[in-house]
């Protein structure tokens, strides 16, 4: 019998297509959107319009990266607005308008994100509570706490000037905020692809039981996912505060749904394990472009909510798991299902 050498011939391309299929729809959709936009609302693509939009797109992308890490562990995080609001108020409150205190303020903000993430992670990863309800609750607590803290501290106050002027800088003609987000995305993508930590993180998300049986520390990875997500939300809050300069009661509120929408339409598997940082970044771009286009076409913000909701639903129906499953089914010979005896063993073992 001859050896079967894996080659990247035609068969290799087919296999790579299966891998890519999950993330393909968002790239196609973004391209299509750009073309449609160029035809019906060319203003949306103009650089003046982008100068305004890119920072917001980046903030969405950073928050979505955090959400993506949680989704990779088959979870969901609804504490984003709480963390972002409290984080924003800390920047104003601790920073107290003084550039010298900016570093302390940013550290406080990131520590808050990490702390909330740790609480979420322990409740979900160790006590095995349901991620939806836990993060809803912690999000609510943090948000209310932030509101309490903000009274008197924040009203009329601005973030330290150094932060807002940094956010206005445009190295190479594009916003510094944008570069930060792009670097973060690249960093997450590289860590997931090129490090042992990233590989184990994916494995634990894809199948925690198999990961445990292969000798991995499952709980640690899950806790880490929520902590990292919290830190990324806090970073998003820093960027948003820099762009907005001041904090209003609705600060961060729109980041409950949008990051989830971005992750979902970027093709992440809600069953855990698979997601792409670059696709998530692109999805944030696409959602922003869509919003921008609708705005230029004169549609109200109300319409944007509807389009958002539809994008989540359509994204779930056409991308990610389904595309991968469909292509997989077409391209591989199906197998016999495992026998009931095996199922019985599982229930006995858990």
């Amino acid at each position, binding site marked *: 019998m001859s050896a079967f050498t894996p080659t990247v011939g035609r068969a290799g391309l087919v296999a790579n297509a299966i891998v890519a299929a999950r993330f393909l729809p968002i790239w196609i959709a973004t391209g299509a959107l750009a073309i449609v936009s160029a035809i019906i609302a060319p203003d949306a693509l103009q650089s003046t319009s982008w100068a305004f939009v890119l920072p917001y797109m980046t903030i969405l992308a950073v928050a979505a990266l955090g959400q993506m890490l949680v989704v990779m562990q088959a979870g969901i995080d609804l504490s984003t607005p709480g963390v972002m609001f409290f984080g924003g108020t800390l920047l104003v409150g601790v920073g107290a308008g003084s550039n010298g205190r900016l570093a302390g303020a940013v550290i406080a903000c990131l520590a808050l994100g990490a702390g909330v993430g740790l609480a979420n992670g322990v409740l979900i990863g160790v006590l095995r509570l349901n*991620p939806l309800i836990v993060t809803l609750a912690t999000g609510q607590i943090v948000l209310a706490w932030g509101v309490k803290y903000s009274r008197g501290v924040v009203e009329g106050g601005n973030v330290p000037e150094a932060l807002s002027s940094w956010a206005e800088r445009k190295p190479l003609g594009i916003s510094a905020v944008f570069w930060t987000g792009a670097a973060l995305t690249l960093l997450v993508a590289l860590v997931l692809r090129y490090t042992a930590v990233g590989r184990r993180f994916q494995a634990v998300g894809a199948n925690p039981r198999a990961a445990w049986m292969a000798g991995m520390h499952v709980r640690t990875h899950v806790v880490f996912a929520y902590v990292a997500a919290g830190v990324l939300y806090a970073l998003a809050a820093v960027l948003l505060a820099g762009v907005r300069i001041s904090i209003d009661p609705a600060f961060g509120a729109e980041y409950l749904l949008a990051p989830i929408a971005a992750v979902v339409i970027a093709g992440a598997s809600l069953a855990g394990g698979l997601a792409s940082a670059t696709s998530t970044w692109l999805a944030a771009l696409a959602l922003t472009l869509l919003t921008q286009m609708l705005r230029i076409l004169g549609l109200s913000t109300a319409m944007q909510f509807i389009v958002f909701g539809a994008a989540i639903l359509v994204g779930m129906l056409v991308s990610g798991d389904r595309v991968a499953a469909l292509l997989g089914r077409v391209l591989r010979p199906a197998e016999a299902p495992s026998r009931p005896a095996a199922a019985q063993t599982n229930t006995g073992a858990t």
Partner: protein
Amino acid sequence: MSISRAWLPLALMTTLIVALGAYAAMRQDAFLTTYNLGNLLLSTMPLALVAIGQTNALLVGGFDVSVAALMTMCVVVASFTLQPDKSWDVLLVGALAVVGVGLATGVFNATLIRVLKLPSIIATLGTLSILEGAALLLRDHPEGFINPNAIEALNAGVSFVPYAFIGVVVLAVLADIWLYRTRTGLALRAVGLDDSSSRRLGMATGRTVFLAFVICSLMAAVAGFYSAAQVQIGSPIIGNYALESIAAAVLGGASLAGGKGSFVGTLLAALFLTEISNVLPLFQQPTEYAQMTIGVLILLALVLYQAPELLARLRTSWGGVGRLRTRQGEAAG
């Protein structure tokens, strides 16, 4: 579940309601007045109704996070269909329109979840966004008064107790009797506890899940009437009912894994949560404390109600981790 554990949420909620009430009554004269108590009961209505609906979704192992947006939508629709100076038959048609919105939303959600096999969280998240947008399209700022006669009818009562509250108490008790003392109630719990075994036993699991989500939305629509009666105007911003309805159901003893819950418990929890918001202003405390308390209570309830399981989880070698059930509603072969 042993008997004592099944009653724990009910006992705990009753104790908390009485304790908080007694404390408030001792410290503040304004609490134990018929005006305040009537007000408390009335303001419990929207949460009580929507939480009872939410309990249905939880019983079949799902979530509905779109209920708050649906309530907002219903209030906004009501501001068009229940305008002042309209005759009762016009109002009746208008009320049916509001219920119709609830029914349509319910069917839409249930189809996404049961037919198209989307996880209930994502499906209702999408619906949430769409409804929010639709409500904003119809009213981008609060306007359009609700018919005062209709409001009066909704708020009517005997002494300080609104008829509606009596109605919801009766509803919750009947629903619990149905859930724990009838064949179809048992079937619903069985489907929530174990979809696969239920299918093997020849039960219509698909229909059960579908109906549960439709009922959830219908209850949210009815809750919308009472929200409308409170705000009295077509406002596109209505409270944080998505979290609070889940909170009330969980505090009332509903399990997030499906199959366990109590409508009476949900009602008591809704009453308690509203009581907190009612008492805080009497003590000149900001409303954030209510939100924080609710958040903390949810976490405590999650831990307390399943303490034995949690201990077992910590002790077993495979502790596992919390994960969403993304195949919700899909029968496991």
